[in-house]
């Protein structure tokens, strides 16, 4: 299976501080990859570089045969909008929009008709066990419910890859398991790949594969026979 997303020698500095010092990585289509590492290891920066939110200072990022690091800003925005989905730790839901409309947002932004978008969002509500919560605004949802809405929003537009940055970072373990269960289940059933950045082993354990980042490099474990 050829890799959907690859990174080769990716370096990124913030001012004089190096955040990434040559990271090699690949994600296959439909694969769930966990990126672990202590705080400050550069794992979030890596995710931002992979998703085209940040441009690497050196190295290559290729998605589906195209060089993401060479795309102009507009094209990268379009890529993020159409091919990628995003789940962040918190605060990505628009506070005034009810859950249903938050989920429908990517479809509306893509120019879909309101009814079509909301019907699709309705189905995602049901799939993530949020029936009857569609009219609540984020402030009226529990942390776990809000993150499931975020997951639904990331998946609603049919991305090929979802980037998740500490998706359970502000949840207790029960809610975290629930979110991850549904996240991985739905992504797998849709054939969507996930790159999840986390410092929690229990979250990483949902992945097919785990890489560990330390001091801006991927830690290469010794080959265990």
């Amino acid at each position, binding site marked *: 299976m050829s890799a959907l997303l690859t990174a080769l020698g990716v370096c990124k500095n913030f001012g004089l501080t190096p955040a990434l010092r040559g990271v090699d990585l690949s994600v296959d289509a439909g694969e769930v990859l966990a990126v672990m590492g202590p705080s400050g290891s550069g794992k*979030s920066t890596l995710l*931002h570089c992979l*998703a085209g*939110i*940040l441009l690497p200072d050196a190295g290559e990022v290729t998605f589906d045969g195209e060089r993401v690091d060479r795309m102009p800003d507009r094209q*990268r*925005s*379009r*890529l*993020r*909008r*159409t091919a*990628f*989905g*995003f789940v*962040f*730790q918190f*605060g*990505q*839901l*628009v*506070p*005034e*929009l*009810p859950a249903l*409309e938050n989920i429908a*947002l*990517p479809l*509306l*932004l893509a120019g879909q*008709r*309101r009814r079509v978008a909301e019907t699709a969002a309705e189905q995602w509500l049901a799939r993530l066990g949020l029936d009857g919560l569609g009219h609540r*605004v984020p402030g009226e949802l529990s942390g776990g419910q809000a993150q499931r809405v975020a997951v639904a929003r990331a998946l609603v537009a049919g991305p090929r890859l979802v980037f998740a940055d*500490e998706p359970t970072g502000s949840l207790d373990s029960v809610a975290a398991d629930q979110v991850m269960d549904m996240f991985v289940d739905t992504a797998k059933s849709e054939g969507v790949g996930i790159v999840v950045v986390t410092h929690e082993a229990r979250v990483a354990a949902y992945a097919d594969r785990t890489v560990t980042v330390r001091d801006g490099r991927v830690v290469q474990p010794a080959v265990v026979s």
Partner: protein
Amino acid sequence: MNFRLGLRIAFAGGRESLARLALMAFGVTIGVILLLFTLTAMPVLQGHVDRLAWHRTNAASPPTAPDGALWMAVTDRYAGQDVIRVHIAALGPRPPVPPGVDRLPAPGEVVVSPALAELLRTVPADQLGNRFPGQIVGTIGPEGLISPGELVGIVGRTPEEMRNTAGAYEIRGIEQPGEQLDLAPAARILVMLVAVLIVGPVVVFVSMVTRVGAARREQRFAAIRLAGATRLQTVVLAVTETLGAAIVGTLLGWLGYLATRPLVASQITLGHGVPIYVADLTAPADQALLVLVAVPVLTVFTTLVAMHRVQISPLGVRQRVRRRPPRATRLIPLAVGIAAFWEGIQLSNAQAETGNRNPLVGWLPVVSPLVILVGLVLVGPWVCMWISRGVARLSRRATTLMAARRIASDPYTAFRAVSGATLAIAVATIAGLTAAHEREVGGSNQSVLNPGVVVIDVRGVPEAALAPLMSNGVVVGRSGPGGTLVVGCADLARVTELSCPLPSSVLNGEQPLTELFNRNGIMEPGPQATSLPVVTLYVPTDGSLAAEERVRTLAAVTVPFSLTRTNRDFEAESERQLDRAGVLAPAVVFVLLVAALSLTISAIAGLLERRRPFALLRASGVRLAELRRLVLLETGVPLLSTSLGVFGLVMLVMYLVVPRSEWVFPEPSFLAGLGLGVLAALAVSSIAVLMMDVATRHDAVRYE
């Protein structure tokens, strides 16, 4: 915990909190300046009445000196400007003396105001100077003038000359100031409207400013509480911060008021075409002091109210109450106001018909517009909520939906940001309609004089004395029975735009032609016409200013008491009337500006509040242009909808209460100005749109 620690913590917040305090001080500065100028309104009007006092001198004026004087005053004109000409002759060694001069000019002497002296130097004597026969021996000081530019001349005469002059009478004293300012109800409404208009938006602006960064400040207070501070101590901290900014702002506001007084005074003409004295533009000391004390107290109070709304515990900040959505009961005051206004109009119409005085007529028209304004402010959030709910239901685009939901979630804040603009537009629309109405009504007695014709009202002077004025081509109007004007139609057609036969409304006096000094209609001269006394002369000239003023000067020399009019006078007069209606324009512009600032502040606060979701949306590939559109919609939708709503409402009320025959539409230029003002407010607030890029850059995606 003391104030010093409070100040240290206030400034320890770094550039951000310093910027917030500076913004707050700025808001208070603007507010104080506006309030102080509002306070000057009454002194300016009272000063005007006082300065006018000696112009009103008459035979009944109380004695001010042992001896009397002979007095004759007339309002003359030069090039459309009023020229006050007083002829006076002392009847003893100690006659009454008008303010601004040391002594009465002796016969053959003249004293003039500085502006008139200047004019006399540049204009040939036969056009102006001859009206003031004698030698200029002094100038009239400021206490004798309404404004620095007033044209006044006092001509000294002998008693014999005065006794032979028509219109002269004996006075015992000069009319003294002290008459209480008695504003017409309309003017009273105007002053109150302006006060509400100015004070309201300024208070809103100050409270908006305190909202910026309120969340950050409350978190800081929560941290301070975690470190062991009590609730009271955080309140003291907040008050210290606010009070510091408010005191600085108040002082700057006072200095700003002092600095801008000459500029503002140069813009106030009170309908005389020339600016007033700067000294008259002074807020009474006690009231000014009250403002300087009350404003900081008010800001502290605002802070306390804001602090009461959130509960700051050591574990964070919690909104104490979720405000209930506005209810339809908010419509009541507006409805009551409109009903009262309508009732007031009905009553005053009834009073005009029956002549029965009704006490309600006195105050209903004064109170009801205020109730309507208050009602507008109350009903605003309710309207915002329903409009945004409707938009949310109908919107197809994501940005429209987001903006509508935002407004619907907190219609109070959304409306507060535009309430200033709403008030400004309400008052501006009323003013615009009133101006259009006046123009419409005034349109019927627009001057029918031909250009270049000078009309002279000889005021009862016998025909024999008028010989110098009887040149070729002069049309003579005589006094007919029943106060009619006897003049040949063909003659009249020569000097006016009227044509023969004259319309019946002119003939029977239904449409009085004031510029012709026409009283009760016009009659064709009969055989005995020449025996009737002359009342008016119509002197044609070549239409140049010099020729007109030469005729006028000749008239003033021949009959000092005569009144003259030319087409030019009417033009100047209607311009000054426009000027008077235009008093509101600067106020409206200023308030729109303050409203625009409020709107900007609220847009920025709204952006900073949602910095994170916006940044994350942008990271997810949402275009920057769409986020900018969102902010523009969030300010634009409430602004435009309330502006249109208020405009429509005022028009509706006007049409409801004014009979159909008097319906007027505002001038296109007025509409254009209003539209431009709203657009300008929107443009100022789009600073927030420019901030969107910086506020949602990548670093906002990172976790703190």
